[in-house]
């Protein structure tokens, strides 16, 4: 919790610093209007479970999967910019031999395959620093688990609170577009518990400033 509080404090401090009044100067600077942009971003990449660590010793196979995100953001005169992010987060797919108990109480050795993914809807602030972009957000994630054991498949949906952290390097910026690489972390939390699961994603991101006001 202390680390969580520190994180929030740092974000708040950064925002507060950005809002600090500019000291008066003796000679007024020439008036320069800050451009305002509405942007849409697309992220495509690979992602998988980060925490808890998988018990790979007992898994037949495991992997993550392809993830993507669509983000809308507004960049104005303020140092921070708000964004809204819709994402598909691949968490884990795996298969293993399990000792399961049937409804009748018999312990059987059987094959189980599972996959775990989430749809996220996240709001938060972001910061553009030169050609780097950082975003943190909080939102709602619909976490889905698909399980097949003994030939029977079942899919379960459960909502969780989720936290998003993203860092991008926009290395190629032909206006009004920009293209770069992005690393994302998603942490899922249920009410009254700590973070129970997190996933990382890495891939490419593209930005399009579809409205640009000078």
């Amino acid at each position, binding site marked *: 919790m202390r680390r969580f509080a520190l994180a929030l404090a740092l*974000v708040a*401090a950064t925002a507060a610093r950005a809002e600090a009044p500019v000291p008066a100067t003796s000679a007024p600077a020439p008036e320069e209007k800050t451009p305002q942009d509405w942007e849409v971003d697309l992220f495509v990449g690979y992602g998988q479970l980060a925490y808890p660590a998988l018990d790979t010793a007992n898994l037949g196979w495991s992997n993550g999967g392809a993830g993507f995100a669509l983000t809308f953001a507004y960049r104005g005169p303020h140092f921070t910019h708000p964004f809204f992010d819709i994402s598909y987060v691949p968490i884990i797919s795996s298969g293993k031999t399990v000792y399961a108990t049937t409804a009748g*109480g018999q312990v059987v050795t059987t094959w189980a395959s599972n996959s775990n993914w989430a749809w996220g809807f996240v709001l938060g602030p972001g910061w553009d620093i030169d050609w780097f972009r950082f975003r943190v957000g909080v939102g709602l994630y619909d976490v889905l688990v698909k399980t097949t054991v003994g030939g029977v498949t079942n899919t379960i949906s459960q909502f969780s609170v989720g936290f998003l952290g993203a860092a991008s390097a926009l290395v190629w910026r032909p206006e009004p577009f920009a293209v770069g690489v992005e690393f994302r972390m998603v942490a899922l939390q249920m009410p009254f*518990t700590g973070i129970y699961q997190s996933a990382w994603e890495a891939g490419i991101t593209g930005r399009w400033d579809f409205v640009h006001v000078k």
Partner: protein
Amino acid sequence: MNSNGRKIALALCALTSAACVSRTSPTPPTFQAGGLLALSTPVPNPYLLQDALEGVYDTTSRFGSPVVVHASQWGDLAGDRVTTAGQAPITRVNASVSILAADHYAFAILQAGCLPPSASPVVSPATTQTQLVLEGYWRYLDTNNPDPTTTGLVRLFVQPQSVADYVCGAPAWDATQPIPAHAPLNIPVTLAGATGNGENLPGDPLTVTWVQPRKSRLPPCAQPPNPTCSAVPSFLVGVHHGGCQTTDNCGISENTPETSILATQLGGEYLEVDTRLTKDNVPVFFHLSLNPGVVQGVYCTGQVEDYTYEQLTADCRLRNGEVIPRVVDMIGYILARTKLPLYLDSKTSSVILPVANILAALDGERPPNLTDPTNDGYVRCNPPPNPLPTGFTPATWPPAGKRCLFPGSNTVSVRGVIGLPDSDSVNTYQSEQQSGQINSTYQRCLVEENSSDVTSLGCVAWMPRYTRGPMQSEVNSLQSTGHFVGFWTINDPATIDAFLTTNGPNQGPNGMLTNYLGLLNQRYEVVGTPPQYPPTLAGSP
């Protein structure tokens, strides 16, 4: 990167690693190489510890004063074996001694051993006599993440020597012999030794000194013994989900078979456990949702009702590694290893009939199971029913193919009570009664909401939420007709005291559910009085 950028990067790192839930729980500390118990022999008669040691004591450190010293008995795997005609498998009865305190909601669970003189070189001071040694661990339950400041080892020696001789010099007892009648020695006992922190050997001196015997739980009319008055205890300590909540990290998850042993050791006298139904209609024990605070497994999320039982066992483990238990397995375990009555709280109305059917099948004494050779239900072996059912003699009891209830236990029908927490479950139970699916002669029920439903359904108990207040007139009205009345779930010492005393002596409820069994035991000894009306049917809810 400028200063702001560095702060943001740091913030991102902190956010992604903050407040992660640990999916596994620590285990209680243990003595290396088994401690002195490894050099000792088990006490020959587990019931004698109760006579010799139970009482109210003062302590010099760690636990505050007063504390309750509680002795318990619990069984082992032999209860799972079936009988042959006229012969019961020998169940080993184990004994524990516990210290139950109010300070820090502390407890200690100790096992007893008779330490022969040959082991004296390792004991300080050396002795030429057999010593009664108690070893185990202590725990403060007011913090749910145990560390060396809140848990550790305990080693105590029983004094005077005459008490050690009484316990260690007794003839051996096994479950084929009658259960000894409880006969307190009332000798002022001192438990002298030390406690430690974490896995460190005990080094902090502790003396536990006998002050007085435990209070009676018999109704006032039974004190002094009155042949016209029931000798059934009228106040019972109720166990909420188990001896310890999963989130309290006691090493055992709630709603598991093993928690019934822990509950017995901590002075619990009836066990509330939660029943649910899987997608393929298997009744299981589980409380709420598959929350990471109580289960482990990347794919374990949602509700029990979303999974088939096979999927549950493939994907989910409880916090301490246990499988989510089937009702039939766990009830069998508890019937064979403890005397606890079971309050089976129906979390969905659909689970009521399947659980009633399981109880019916597990009761080996219930017709037609008694004469059905294919039924392997549980019967009373020690003591046997009195009188024996028609057609049986002492030479043919127990019948072949049955399993034995724990010594001293009541029948399955008396012990297994279905809890009805809301109007939906009350309506379901009523309709199953009317359709004949539930046999009211054998199946017992408990109502949580309206007291009027207790009498209309023929239930044996009322267990309202304590926040509704003492409700004295309703409580006394039901108690006077032989019903058990308890409250759920009280964990705060002041509120426990209020419910034990507000309406005056002998006017309280017959029981309370709590997460802190030691605390409730201790508070009863300090402020409690037995309710004037004992519940019918052997004092169980």
